[in-house]
């Protein structure tokens, strides 16, 4: 069975969103990694705000290796780059969903509802407009590699 790995970004964090995912265990406060093993499906609700992305990646790797599905609900669009699938909520309604890069290409739509883009994606898009790169990059190493070949 495939493990779910999803980020939900919302313009107005509201726990009503969680009603759709009743079979998931909600983590909305500090937690110990080992305690996650008790569950097969977990929703993180606005808990990674203070963490470096490397630490969030470590948590996801731990869940992946233990075949635990997870959804991360956040208002921080940077966290979207850490999963492959992204759902964007405008208040309590799904606005758009799909593979992360496809969703992030809708930059005008996202900005209209008050979201920004992840920094490296926004920089890629602006540099693409100036003809300095040809595609959207998801990490600093590949963007720098494309600019300074």
């Amino acid at each position, binding site marked *: 069975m495939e493990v779910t790995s999803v980020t939900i970004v919302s313009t107005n964090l509201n726990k009503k969103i969680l009603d759709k995912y009743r079979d998931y265990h909600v983590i909305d406060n500090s937690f110990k990694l080992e305690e996650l093993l008790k569950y097969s499906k977990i929703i993180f609700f606005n808990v990674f*705000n203070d963490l470096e*992305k490397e630490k969030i990646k470590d948590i996801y790797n731990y869940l992946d290796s233990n075949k635990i599905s997870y959804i991360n609900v956040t*208002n921080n669009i940077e966290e979207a780059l850490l999963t492959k699938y992204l759902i964007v909520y405008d208040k309590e309604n799904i606005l758009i969903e799909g593979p992360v890069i496809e969703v992030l290409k809708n930059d005008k739509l996202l900005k209209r509802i008050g979201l920004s883009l992840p920094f490296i994606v926004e920089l890629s898009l602006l540099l693409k407009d100036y003809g300095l790169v040809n595609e959207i990059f998801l990490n600093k190493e590949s*963007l720098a590699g494309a600019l300074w070949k």
Partner: protein
Amino acid sequence: MEISKILNENELLGVISNYDTSFKIEGYVKDLNVKNILQALKMVLLDDTYLDKKIEDLTLNEQFKIDLMLKINKDIIIVGNLSKVLNYKDIEYFKKLFLKLNNDYHKKIVIIDRDVKVFFNLVKDMVVLKDKKIVYETKDFFDNELYQYTKIPPIIEFIKYLNSKNIKINKTVDIYELIKDIYRSVS
């Protein structure tokens, strides 16, 4: 708290801390003791439909706005966790509002957050607060020691990464200035 000691010199102060700024008021919005409440709601991006709502039923984003509405007439305004509860557009709006309150009404404003990005183009001084004591002070967003206490914003991480590869890019927190510099560097 030692913050009060340095407030005289720093009228817009960024505080990096886990200090609990959660909102604890309950009841209906219309029952709050606020002068010109409709105008006050508008200032914090809420409309008159909120008058009949219970504060405890509001989202974190909305509770932040109500909390700010209650503080807006004070001489010292202390707000926290913008990055945790507000979206990008709201953060940019409130940063402009804080600058206006500071410039035009000489209010002292303390912004407590774990995300340094919130302080860009807003504060000149930052302090790190641990167990209610100031453990570090800086004015420099590119100060390496600052990021021993909190996560590094992506634009600063990117510029530091380029500099580490001997690619000369100037320090900036403005994406358009960065693009100009990249253009000069690769052309």
